[in-house]
């Protein structure tokens, strides 16, 4: 039977990698700034009438501190998904859009959080280790991680197994 007449394989259930990295530096900085802002605002309100909306600033900093406290990475049979604490919004890269992956390191000057660097986007909760996804079209996306080997293996396994499926045998 010619190949094009065969039943196309249906996707198999591939293993899923999921890892959450918790960072303390971003929350510490943002919580600290929130407290500092609250103290300044408290002092300032005795001297002039402040609109209540300014109290949104320390609240916003507390919320952002919590939001950027963890980076969640998921690799499954379809995509690599990266999101911060609340799992939304997430950046998703379909496996078909990824040409390859490799381990890399970033200097401290790249900072933490969401970064646009000369080497492409970097999402990093904390630390220097990352995995670089080389995307079709020449762009790169960097995922900071404290499980560099595990994430790299998961991405490479998913890339190798993409398109894998099971077709029935026929006599």
């Amino acid at each position: 039977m010619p190949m094009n007449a065969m039943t196309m394989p249906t996707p198999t259930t591939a293993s899923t990698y999921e890892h959450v990295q918790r960072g303390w530096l971003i929350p510490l900085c943002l919580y600290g700034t929130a407290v500092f802002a609250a103290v300044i605002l408290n002092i300032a309100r005795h001297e002039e009438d402040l609109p209540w909306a300014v109290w949104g600033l320390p609240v916003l900093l507390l919320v952002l501190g919590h939001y950027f406290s963890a980076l969640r990475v998921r690799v499954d049979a379809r995509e690599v998904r990266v999101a911060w604490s609340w799992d939304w919004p997430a950046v998703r890269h379909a496996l078909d859009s990824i040409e390859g992956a490799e381990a890399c390191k970033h200097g401290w000057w790249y900072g933490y959080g969401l970064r646009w660097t000369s080497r492409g986007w970097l999402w990093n909760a904390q630390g220097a280790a990352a995995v670089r996804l080389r995307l079709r079209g020449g762009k790169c996306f960097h995922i900071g991680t404290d499980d560099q080997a595990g994430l790299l293996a998961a991405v490479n396994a998913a890339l190798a197994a993409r398109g894998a499926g099971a077709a029935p045998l026929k006599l």
Partner: protein
Amino acid sequence: MNHDANDARHEMSGAPPLLAPQIPLPPYAYRPGRNAHPLRHPQGHMFGGVEMRPPLPAQNAWATETGHLHAIDLFNNKFWWEAHEAWESYWHSAPVGTAEHHALKGLIQFAALHLKIESADVATAATLQRNALQNLEVANGHGLVRGGRCLGFDLIEICALITATAPHLPAPKAQ
């Protein structure tokens, strides 16, 4: 499990019709590390069973050999480990170097390939894919195989299926 429940479960799976409907499918498909080993675990679905060594059918009788048809049913319903076991019982009986011996080994490796893909063991999957193709090509080139058919299969078609099963596996490391 009775036959009706077995048939209903199979119909829902979307797999092709059972070739040996008189033999029920196992209650679960074994996945290493996820559920009970069928032979070794007391709750395994083959625990306490007697190891079978069925005699090899004649070359033109594979398409009606019940055990072989059940192995195909197992494979088509994603009972990879169970299908591999079923073919292995024939493989032990097949004289070394024959087309059947190579073809059965290729099928066993094909079933194992699915297990390794599911567990994301890319390196082993790549090796199994290569070895399965090699064994089926050897079987296909065997003088006794007429028109590329062995065990009732078109071996060229099986080779194409093996390649299509995981088209992006890296080249396996040299042995």
